[in-house]
């Protein structure tokens, strides 16, 4: 089962997604996409790690090529986060061409193998489009990718100041 969780910066989306996965009885995996390269990203990782502490998550770092990863079957999985994974894929060695398809394939395959896959994504589409051309192109592809995932997902949530708003599924 696939659940998509979106929201703005520091909206409480991770905590909500983590609670969804944390409530499951299956072994819990945390698929971390962020590449740590400075003190800020280190602090971010540390904050999220503290949030998950003692909740039985096993962390797997997978910044790119999710499609090529043999995810253990039957787990409850938290993937954090989609914009990051897509940026690593799009701007990484494998290149922008076909990046969205690779990520889509990877996420759908991971969802098939999991009891639950919660994907955290970011609502990054409402700050104007005053970005470099490359960023705009990335953003447009991310949005298309996200819509495809939302169409495939059983539930879609937007978290607003820590409050989950249901867009699709059970909650609506």
């Amino acid at each position, binding site marked *: 089962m696939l659940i998509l969780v979106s*929201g703005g910066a*520091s909206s409480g989306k991770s905590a909500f997604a983590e609670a969804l996965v944390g409530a499951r009885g299956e072994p819990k995996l945390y698929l971390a996409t962020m590449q740590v390269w400075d003190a800020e990203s280190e602090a971010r990782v540390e904050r999220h790690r503290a949030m998950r502490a003692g909740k039985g998550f096993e962390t797997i770092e997978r910044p790119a090529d999710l499609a090529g990863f043999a995810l253990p079957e039957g787990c409850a999985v938290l993937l954090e986060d989609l914009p990051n994974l897509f940026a690593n894929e799009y701007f990484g060695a494998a290149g922008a061409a076909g990046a969205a398809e690779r990520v889509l394939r990877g996420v759908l395959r991971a969802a098939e193998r999991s009891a639950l896959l919660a994907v955290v994504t970011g*609502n*990054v589409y409402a700050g104007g489009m005053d970005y470099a051309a490359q960023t705009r192109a990335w953003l447009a592809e991310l949005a298309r990718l996200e819509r495809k995932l939302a169409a495939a997902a059983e539930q879609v949530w937007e978290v607003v*100041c*820590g409050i989950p708003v249901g867009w699709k599924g059970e909650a609506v």
Partner: protein
Amino acid sequence: MILIIGGAGQGKLEYVLQKTGLGPEQVARDPETARSRPVFAGVEQWPELEENELLAANPEIILICDEVGSGVVPADPEQRLRREQVGRLCCRLAARAERVERIFCGLSMVLKGEGTWN
């Protein structure tokens, strides 16, 4: 405390004034003034707001805050930090609020609280 959020220019303040019958002169724009006014607008300008202190002084206040976290993550670390501070502040405020509404095109969606307001 009531928390009203939404994008810039969506009609949050107008909505609050209409709901409460208050006038613009009763709206605080900084935390100091907010201690003794019924409404504090522009909370997003104060990402380091000490909400404990403000709410102890004015527990019934209506707080109005722009949502600022829905663009691409800014390259500038200071901007990045600011919008995260505002986001976390809103999470804390929403958890304590008796009512949270989100204003979109002048329309309200109740995120927390029972029934209609006023």
